[in-house]
């Protein structure tokens, strides 16, 4: 793949509360058209990092960085109006829970078409065609009927597919998926991840996949970044995960229960030891 670090280039990213509490403590990373996983426990700052890439942080937080470029835009200085030209067009996001992220009062067709209305000029007929094409592309049956349905009529897995259709309808260059599967059933999780993987591959996009389940994302990503308490503490290729050297990465990798581990305690984090490493 060419121009590897052109989509996101961040150095010294700090996010914190107005009273000075730092939540993300100066992290550096860059990514191109590749699939990267950002992994960590809840509260490690991974969602804040992702939201800063969409300009979606609440006003009560400050963002500072030595260098912050998104698709060669200096977005740190951008106001909402400038963000609006990027968001949903060149960068888009899939959120955790389709039950809360979809608008319950609008039908699916209207919600999926919204990015088109905002960013492209096309006839309403062409828009409907594009929406149906997209719903079909994410593996939903009977797009014409589905377009008129409302979010409460869909299951979690279908809702997540609708969100994916919405995010990809403008062919963005970067997709950010913030725990896209944690509200879903186990059987559906792999389906949705595999779908995201194949769509991203097809369109040659960048993917930033956020999760707390290291084993699950490892199959779908090329690189893994591990966050702990606001810092990027480890950075490695997905194939290198079984031989990770950092104790935090090791534990995250091996703490998933399975039948082979019956009768023995699962590895847990030695948080005091991690404090000393920090």
């Amino acid at each position, binding site marked *: 793949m060419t121009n590897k670090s052109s989509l996101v280039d961040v150095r010294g990213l700090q996010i914190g509360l107005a009273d000075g509490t730092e939540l993300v403590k100066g992290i550096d990373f860059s990514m191109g058209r590749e699939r990267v996983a950002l992994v960590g426990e809840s509260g490690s700052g991974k969602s804040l990092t992702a939201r800063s890439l969409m300009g979606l942080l609440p006003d009560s937080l400050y963002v500072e960085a030595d260098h912050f470029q998104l698709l060669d835009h200096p977005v740190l200085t951008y106001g909402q109006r400038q963000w609006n030209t990027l968001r949903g067009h060149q960068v888009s996001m899939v959120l955790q829970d389709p039950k809360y992220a979809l608008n319950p009062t609008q039908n699916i067709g209207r919600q999926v078409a919204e990015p088109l209305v905002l960013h492209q000029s096309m006839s309403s007929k062409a828009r409907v065609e594009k929406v149906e094409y997209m719903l079909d592309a994410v593996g939903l049956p009977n797009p014409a009927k589905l377009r008129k349905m409302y979010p409460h009529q869909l299951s979690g897995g279908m809702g997540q597919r609708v969100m994916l259709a919405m995010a990809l309808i403008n062919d963005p260059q970067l997709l950010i998926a913030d725990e896209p599967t944690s509200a879903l059933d*186990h059987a559906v999780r792999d389906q949705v991840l595999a779908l995201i993987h194949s769509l991203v591959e097809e369109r040659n996009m960048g993917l930033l996949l956020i999760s707390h389940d*290291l084993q699950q994302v490892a199959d779908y990503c090329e690189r893994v970044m591990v966050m702990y308490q606001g810092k990027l503490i480890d950075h490695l290729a997905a194939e290198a995960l079984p031989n990770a050297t950092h104790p935090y990465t090791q*534990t995250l990798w091996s703490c998933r229960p399975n*039948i082979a*581990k019956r009768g023995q305690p*699962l590895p847990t984090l030695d948080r005091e030891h991690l404090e000393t490493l920090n």
Partner: protein
Amino acid sequence: MNQLELKKVSVSHVQGLQSNTVVHDIDLTVEAGECFGLVGPSGCGKSSLLWVLAGLNPHWEGEITLFGQPLESGKIFTGDRRRRVQMVFQDPYASLHPKHRLRRTLAEPLKLLGLSDINDRISEGFKQVGLTENMIDRYPHQLSGGQRQRVAIIRALLLEPKLLLLDEPTSALDMSVQAEILNLLNELKANHDLTMIMVSHDPDVIDYMCDHAVTMKAGRIDQEKRYV
């Protein structure tokens, strides 16, 4: 001895005049001291069955024998049974009273039972699950998800149950915290001679934890599996 025996049990949800049967003709037995698993996709009726066993839904038919005594359909639990069956709910954020300090939440059932040395029991419980005693006087929002789920487990254990029902106890938690909670449950099972029924949609968790498990599909038992 069998702690629990179900014969041809069907469960319905009653809403107004409408009744919707979601679990059909379940037969199963749970032996004392085992961890019994219920697996299946969302909507297959596993939680509905658990709610019946917790005495939270009296709309069932068939035969249930709990601790050697038959249950009566249509009636809520009374007497000792209330105390001996305890449940840990899925969502640690929703299962503790947000406006009560933990001590008040935890002391309430103990007061009702007229027990003495309530504070000692609570401190003992906190130590057991690896929380520090200074957390007893906090509010639920001052704890993390994993800590809250531990408090929910203490709440159930303080009543010295014989049967502990776990409704997806770790699905709202991080992988690393899940490992801590599962270790804790295994330890408690070994030390307290508890019988546990665990609902989960994660087959890996069931494989790791359970001695005996059934897979449910559309309200019926699809497969049965014994690990020992």
